[in-house]
């Protein structure tokens, strides 16, 4: 019996032990986690320092500047700290750091990393600083512990936030993402793993903007970024010399707009672009960047993101099915594209070559004594003249020379033209395009353009007259309101026929105003018309007066790949038009007109200034009457394809 009881007792004890063990473990996990976190923080305690600043701006734009204590991380024992540039955006007079012994030491800004928003500081101290251990980006896994450590509240202790690694490759490959709470409370501090190794330096970053405060509106949101420490340590020798780091640029424009679907096929690049200097050409497709395979444009952006200006990188391209490798030295700045110009208006290709319709006064072509009616037979040594001109415009810069061969009265004449900047002034007169017999094979006269799923009405007027070249397209954006298209056509009919263009007339859905998102509808209307009618893609322009002109600008700047001309009459540039920049592929010419004297036309002057600054050809002119307006716009549209 005793034996039996003993047995039971032994058995129960065994059960008890087992259960206790399990429960103790459960309890310990929580405990152990807290202990592990605190142990990890202790490892970087001497490396995460508080910095203070004196003086500087009290407002940054419309925001109050962050002038309180902030954080910096020891990155080199010889007195170098790395921090977020956010902490110095107010340009303080004096910066100093509280060292581990409680003493203050003065700091100086040594260099900045403008790609990843970091600032390197040098501390004036003889004390050896404690450099933390760090972990490479390749060792990280999403879901790993990530603890943010700053020192802003109290110089004697750190402030922390606990989370995980959310992603290892964000902001075009520049940063690691965490769900720990990242804010001015820890910008400049460390993101560490559970072993106390530094993953990265905490800083605001954004894909939607540049500058030291970009991305700071996401503070404490659960979306925070850290720049991999190992990648910055590699850059220290450069930064220590006081050299700022800039994003590395390739200087190329791609064919296709969908960066997530289209391959990295080069459509254009300036003559001074780093890729061009390395020997890469328009038409090549980038298939490898620094050893990483590139299938789409977005992958290339990811691959380029971590590199800086001055870095030399191996780039493999596909040229006509053959792979070739080049070494490209990334640039800090790309010269803005400015279209080179010769002063030629060209006609339609014939068997003998490309006829010159008009030679503009004072232009390089005029100086070379080229004449209306000359037929270009070779351009830059190429017999495929039309394509050669296009390639040359995309790949050349102002001042470049080109050899042209023309035939005049059966004689061949060679000349060399030196290009200048585009002179967009309208010619007083020029030869009309040659008419041909017969009728177009599409519907002419008034045509209703139905855009599926859009409530707006839209009509087109298609002239019956046939020319040797395809017609242009003028999209006239009326002021908001209801218009009878029949009445509108009366004003335009004659000029459409004379200058060979189709008029498209989309109307606003709301009779009171145009909504900016109706730019989509206008674009769809153009696409819809293209399904049934033929027109010259190089002569598509959009125009309007007053609020119609502003709407035309909104549409033009959101559809740069389709619209070659923008005419604004008595209209102001809308506040939000996106980026205004000249592009070698999506070239744009702007016309600003007004019924008042030029110097009294404030809107026109603003448009001229903005466009000139962006190297977009712009003409600003006074218009005498409404009738003159139609004629002037028609001539302008006819001259859009000037080279």
């Amino acid at each position: 019996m005793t034996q039996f009881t003993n047995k039971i007792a032994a058995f129960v004890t065994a059960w008890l032990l087992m259960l206790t063990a399990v429960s103790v473990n459960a309890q310990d996990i929580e405990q152990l986690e807290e202990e592990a976190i605190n142990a990890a923080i202790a490892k970087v305690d001497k490396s995460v320092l508080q910095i203070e600043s004196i003086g500087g701006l009290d407002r940054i734009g419309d925001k109050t500047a962050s002038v309180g204590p902030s954080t910096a991380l020891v990155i080199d024992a010889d007195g170098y700290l790395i921090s977020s540039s956010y902490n110095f955006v107010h340009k303080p007079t004096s910066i100093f750091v509280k060292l581990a012994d409680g003493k203050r030491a003065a700091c100086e800004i040594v260099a900045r990393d403008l790609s990843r928003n970091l600032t390197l500081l040098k501390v004036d101290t003889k004390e050896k600083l404690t450099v933390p251990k760090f972990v490479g980006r390749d060792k990280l896994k999403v879901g790993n512990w990530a603890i943010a450590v700053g020192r802003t509240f109290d110089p004697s202790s750190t402030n922390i936030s606990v989370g995980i690694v959310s992603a290892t490759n964000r902001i075009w490959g520049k940063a690691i993402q965490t769900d720990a709470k990242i804010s001015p409370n820890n910008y400049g501090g460390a993101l560490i793993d559970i072993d106390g190794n530094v993953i990265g330096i905490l800083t605001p970053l954004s894909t939607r903007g540049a500058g030291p405060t970009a991305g700071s509106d996401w503070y404490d949101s659960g979306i925070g970024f850290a720049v991999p420490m190992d990648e910055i340590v590699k850059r220290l020798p450069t930064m220590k010399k006081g050299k700022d780091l800039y994003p590395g640029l390739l200087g190329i424009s791609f064919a296709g707009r969908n960066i997530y679907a289209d391959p990295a096929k080069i459509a254009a690049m300036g003559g001074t672009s780093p890729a061009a200097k390395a020997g890469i050409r328009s038409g090549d497709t980038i298939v490898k960047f620094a050893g990483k395979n590139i299938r789409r444009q977005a992958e290339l952006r990811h691959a380029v993101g971590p590199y800086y200006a001055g870095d030399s990188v191996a780039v493999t391209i596909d040229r006509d099915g053959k792979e070739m490798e080049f070494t490209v030295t990334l640039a800090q700045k790309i010269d803005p594209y400015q279209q080179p110009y010769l002063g030629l208006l060209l006609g339609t290709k014939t068997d003998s070559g490309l006829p010159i319709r008009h030679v503009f006064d004072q232009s390089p072509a005029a100086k070379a004594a080229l004449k209306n009616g000359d037929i270009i037979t070779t351009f830059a040594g190429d017999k495929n003249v039309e394509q050669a001109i296009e390639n040359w415009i995309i790949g050349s810069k102002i001042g470049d020379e080109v050899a042209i061969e023309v035939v005049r009265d059966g004689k061949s004449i060679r000349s060399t033209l030196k290009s200048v900047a585009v002179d967009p002034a309208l010619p007083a007169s020029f030869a009309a395009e040659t008419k041909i017999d017969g009728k177009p094979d599409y519907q002419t006269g008034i045509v209703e353009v139905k855009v599926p799923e859009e409530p707006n009405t839209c009509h087109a007027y298609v002239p019956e007259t046939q020319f040797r070249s395809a017609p242009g397209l003028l999209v006239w954006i009326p002021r908001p309101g209801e218009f009878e298209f029949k009445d509108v056509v009366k004003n335009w009919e004659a000029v459409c026929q004379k200058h060979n263009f189709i008029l498209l007339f989309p109307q606003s859905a709301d009779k009171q105003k145009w909504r900016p998102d109706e730019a989509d509808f206008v674009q769809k209307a153009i696409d819809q018309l293209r399904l049934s009618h033929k027109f010259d893609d190089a002569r598509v322009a959009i125009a309007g007066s007053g609020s119609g002109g502003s709407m035309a600008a909104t549409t033009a700047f959101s559809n740069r790949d389709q619209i070659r001309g923008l005419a604004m009459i008595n209209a102001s540039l809308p506040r939000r038009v996106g980026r205004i920049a000249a592009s070698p592929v999506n070239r744009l010419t702007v016309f600003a007109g007004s019924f008042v004297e030029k110097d009294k036309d404030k809107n026109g002057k603003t448009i001229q200034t903005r466009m000139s600054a962006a190297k977009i050809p712009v003409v600003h002119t006074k218009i005498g009457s409404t009738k003159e307006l139609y004629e002037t716009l028609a001539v302008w549209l006819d001259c859009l394809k000037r080279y």
Partner: protein
Amino acid sequence: MTKVRKKSTALFHIALMAACLICVDTSAQLKSYKNVVEDAQNKMVKIYGAGGFQGLEAYQSGFFISSTGEILTTWSYVLDAEDIVVMLNDGQKLNAKLKGYDPRTEVAILKVEVLNVDYFNLDKAVKLRSGSKVLALSNLYGVATGNEPASVQFGVVSAKTKLSARRGAFDTNYQGSVYVIDAMTNNPGAAGGAITDRRGNLAAIIGKELRSSKNNIWLNFAIPVSEITDSIDAIRSGKIIAQADPKAKLADEPMTVKLMGIVLLPNVVSNTPPFVDRVVRGSVADKAGIRPDDLIIEAAGQLTTSRNALENKLKTIERDTPVKLTIQRGRKFLNIEIDLNK
């Protein structure tokens, strides 16, 4: 054979019993988060009072601190109402009386007529350290209505610090220690909520919404129970605590830079750094060794980020009290004492 079977059955029963006992026992020691949260939610109340206009919410949070219906909450305009309505976790709606408040710590106690409610025992309140896991319970944004339990958030203690490590950093009367939490706890209606450790022990009361003037961001913080026990005792004992002077007292005869013999760089912008432009020959500052172009970075232990900050600090110091200044001269830092009596 039968005997053996009986034996094994008995054995099994005993083992099972023991197992059950141990289970119950361990769960008392270590409750699951589910149980912890449910117990804590049961002690929470939703408070409705004045407000409801100009972006001021007419609600906040609170919790029971005695079985007889005492509720601890934050002193705010919400309580400045004829009728304060309290809704218990089970949806019961009761009128509350304001028992008292302490403007220094900004806590208030309400009383409702109710018996045997679950409550947080203040005597068993715990202290937290940086890295401690916490639960935050409140009716943030008023999302919980009727018998819906209070919202629960999970986070860790980010730091334990003084709310006013630098004067004027936050616009609040409370100047003591706080826990900074790494969860977004301080939202409209959350003030008066409870912070517990992971076992459900009360640790702190959630503070008001505050924007830091140090770095202009919203702060998530809670006041430790230990910081408010004096206030609670005073309110309970019926003592009316006088309105404290929230701002530091101004000196009757304040110190000025002029008295020291220092002429600062003209105040061009509001953040003009306190650079010494000139030192009056033979003045106290001159004798103490202050020189033109010195930058005064600290006065009486406070960082002087601008000329205004320095002058405001001096206004709180009597002129016959010696003042310690920290000077940055180039890359050197000097400690200099200014004593007008000398």
